[in-house]
């Protein structure tokens, strides 16, 4: 911990924050969360939060789009859609209807690293949720008819999220260019060409391969007693046999040997630029100091309205309409550090790129101030407290850690790791990781719309 930390004008409150983070006496339950592992290998994590009669039940599978073989990109997400199509016991659409009748809501999501299903329900119905969720872990009925209708829904989703959004296309192309071997090169939604070729059997194979208790983590947060939850989990999930999971043959991305770039042409007004550097992700919370320093670097560049990128590029130099930085420390695959932005009218994309690089260079040359560093640390501490307000947010945090190879137990270590970052460490990562050799740049080259499609006011028929 840097000495500057204690020189903060907020030292009193920081001490208090530390106290809260380490000894959550103000919070209703103390030895929280609680963990057990069922005999079939399924881990169960429960955080008791008894403020309101509400509970979140979330099942995480440690398989996402990065586990997909070539040719079936998007199948993890397609299967997630198919999981609502019914089982031998529960008819199509009934899953949603039963949860709705209890007052609940439910949904699911897929990422590169995992697939997760959740319901928010009155806690009295937790057993019913588990019965339904355990049932579809093994008894899904996946018909050709249901598949051929749902794959059209997924294609519409792809059009909505990606094909009609030039900036989403830029990121899709950026990832496909950064990664040549690692499966992060494929979009979670899948390439349209793969969606068009996909069959119900592809989805069935995915389901048989990965939907097993020993590939899952159950997270329950809310107005529950953890012993009762453990008991229910044993009753509903404990009877499912563990399965032999396929080998995960994930290609490691070879070292990048030179700068890369890609251009997307699509209808738009504003140009757009996204730059990605290969950097480490956090694998060991004790030792991976660079990942913490990179996180702080991201916050110093773009962690608040007055942070460096917005301040200099948008407010002072007015080179950009928007500018940002992003780094996700925790992921199963390789890490990337992004800078992105959109040039202001009359400014070129090259000028924006130069200005973004100049901010990195300033940090390499001059370092960062203690005040800046303390500011973003304060924010990290405060946001940790704020995150306790949402049951869903807490369940997400636990589930993401668990499905990415870390543990909820690392939460405190992760915060301590961030708080220990020094100004010199931030400068050091800025110096070591932003070489052009590991850089990929993607640009949106905005194309004019057809004449009829460029109204300056809503068109009348």
């Amino acid at each position, binding site marked *: 911990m840097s000495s500057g930390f204690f020189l903060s004008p907020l030292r009193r409150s920081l001490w208090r924050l530390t106290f809260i983070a380490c000894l959550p006496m103000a919070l209703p339950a103390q030895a929280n969360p609680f963990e057990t592992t069922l005999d079939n290998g399924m881990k169960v994590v429960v955080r008791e939060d008894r403020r309101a009669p509400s509970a979140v039940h979330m099942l995480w599978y440690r398989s996402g789009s990065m586990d997909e073989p070539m040719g079936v990109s998007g199948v993890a997400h397609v299967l997630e859609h198919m999981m609502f199509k019914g089982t031998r016991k529960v008819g199509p659409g009934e899953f949603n209807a039963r949860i709705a009748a209890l007052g609940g809501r439910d949904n699911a999501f897929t990422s590169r690293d995992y697939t997760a299903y959740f319901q928010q329900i009155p806690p009295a119905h937790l057993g019913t949720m588990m019965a339904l969720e355990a049932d579809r872990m093994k008894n899904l009925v996946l018909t050709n008819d249901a598949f051929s*209708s749902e794959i059209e829904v997924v294609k519409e989703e792809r059009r909505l999220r990606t094909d009609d959004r030039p900036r989403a296309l830029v990121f899709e192309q950026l990832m496909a260019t950064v990664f040549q071997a690692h499966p992060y090169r494929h979009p979670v939604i899948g390439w349209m060409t793969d969606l068009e070729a996909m069959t119900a059997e592809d989805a069935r194979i995915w389901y048989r391969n990965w939907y097993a208790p020993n590939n899952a983590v159950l997270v329950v947060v809310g107005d529950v007693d953890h012993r009762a939850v453990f008991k229910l989990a044993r009753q509903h999930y404990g009877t499912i046999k563990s399965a032999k999971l396929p080998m995960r043959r994930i290609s490691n991305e070879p070292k990048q040997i030179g700068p890369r770039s890609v251009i997307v042409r699509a209808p738009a007004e504003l140009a757009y630029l996204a730059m990605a550097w290969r950097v480490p992700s956090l694998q060991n919370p004790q030792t991976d100091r660079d990942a913490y320093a990179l996180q702080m670097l991201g916050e110093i560049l773009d962690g608040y309205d*007055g942070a460096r990128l917005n301040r200099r590029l948008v407010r002072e130099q007015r080179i950009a309409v928007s500018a940002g930085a992003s780094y996700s420390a925790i992921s199963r695959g390789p890490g990337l550090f992004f800078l992105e932005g959109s040039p202001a009218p009359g400014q070129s994309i090259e000028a924006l790129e130069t200005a973004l690089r100049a901010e990195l260079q300033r940090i390499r040359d001059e370092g960062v101030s203690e005040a800046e560093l303390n500011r973003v640390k304060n924010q990290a501490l405060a946001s940790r407290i704020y995150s306790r307000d949402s049951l869903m947010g807490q369940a997400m945090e636990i589930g993401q850690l668990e499905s990415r190879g870390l543990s909820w137990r690392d939460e405190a270590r992760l915060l301590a790791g961030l708080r220990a970052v020094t100004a010199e460490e931030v400068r050091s990562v800025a110096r070591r990781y932003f070489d052009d050799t590991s850089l990929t740049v993607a640009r949106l080259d905005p194309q004019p719309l057809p004449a009829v499609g460029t109204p300056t006011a809503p068109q009348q028929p």
Partner: protein
Amino acid sequence: MRFLFDFFTALSRHLRTPALASIILAVSGISSPFAQAAPRIEQWTAPTGAKVHFVASRALPMIDIQVDFAAGSAFDPAEKSGVAGFTHAMLDAGAGDLDEQAISERAADLGLILGGSMDRDRASLSLRMLSSAQERDESVALAATVLTRPRFPAEILERERVRSLANLREALTKPAPLGVRAFTAAIYAGHPYGVNSDEKSISSITREDLVGFHTRYYSARNASIAIVGDLDRATAEKIAITLTRNLPAGGNVEALSVPSPLKEGQMMRVANPSAQSHIFVGQPGMSRDDPDYFPLLVGNHILGGGGFTSRLMKEVREKRGFAYDIHSYFEPRRVLGPFQIGLQTKGAQSTLALEVVRSTLTGFISEGPTEKELQAARDNMVNGFGLRLDSNAKILGFVSMIGFYGLSHDWLEHYPRAVSAVSREAVRDAFARRVHPDRLITVIAGGDGDKDEGGTGTTTQP
């Protein structure tokens, strides 16, 4: 550090548009007469004239505050659409002795999240802060400065004007904003709810406009404050005074007129080279204090508001695979807010999808819901009470809405009784009187990139 969240995190099976999400939060909060009491709301008027609604919630060391002014874009001066938005957006561009950099650094130092939102009715400032006395008091003082002593620097107005025009031009290349603008203008022709900012109006805004707007609308008696969190009543009273005592005296705030009903249906197409058509169908809907509020709310839950279980979802998505997102909502406002059905489908399919929407809506209006559907909707809305009030953020959403619209302070207790009392006949009757299939506005925006049937995967790249 925000832009990649969606990209890295996840694809969700069911999209909720931001508009819809706010409706769900604002509308479907329900209290159960049997299970749990709604949070206890204390209510008073501060000596400054501001209305205050307060809920003590002591479990977490944090406080949420929202200050709402009847200063939304419906109050824009004629020909100057955008003044309300710029006034709101520039509150923190310099205030009192602090410039914009000092304000954002100060907020970050305190761990204060200073946010805002803006709609047609309301301009809101929101604060999420730590409840320890020093952080709390300094956060409130900073917010008070921003609210009461904004500088509106002319030079920053110019910068924001350039950004705003650039973002507007960008938006006008995209089917969703193009469609929303056409839809809004058509259902509210001649009403402030139907005005869209454009290059001309944004270019005409001056610093004096912002100062004038702030002086007239950001007054204590035009303010409603909601406070939820770790503090006692006496502290909440002090905070309400601090936030509002130096506000301008305020000018006359006119009441919004009731939008006229549509005289005839209209179908509009907006050209855009996108793969999907964004389709909007609707009309002026209902007000926050509408006598038909509950029948329309429950009915809409069944029609297209209830997510996976709604009729539109079943017909358009589940049976036919026509769309990922298909929804309907009533957005209750001070006066008739919009009723809207929305979906996106590949261009070549838009006519087919629209036919399904129309027949589903017409069938629902003529026959009303089945007893089973009605029961399912009531079950979801009543049994879900505790879930919609299980965090300070969610409670704040309701409490601020109750305060701003002047709803009864037992509105949350009343809710489940009112939902439970809705009958099939009441839904059928309310929809028949209020929704007119022959007088709906339909907008189809974009989809020109997918003219050929079967031409899937058409991207918009030329």
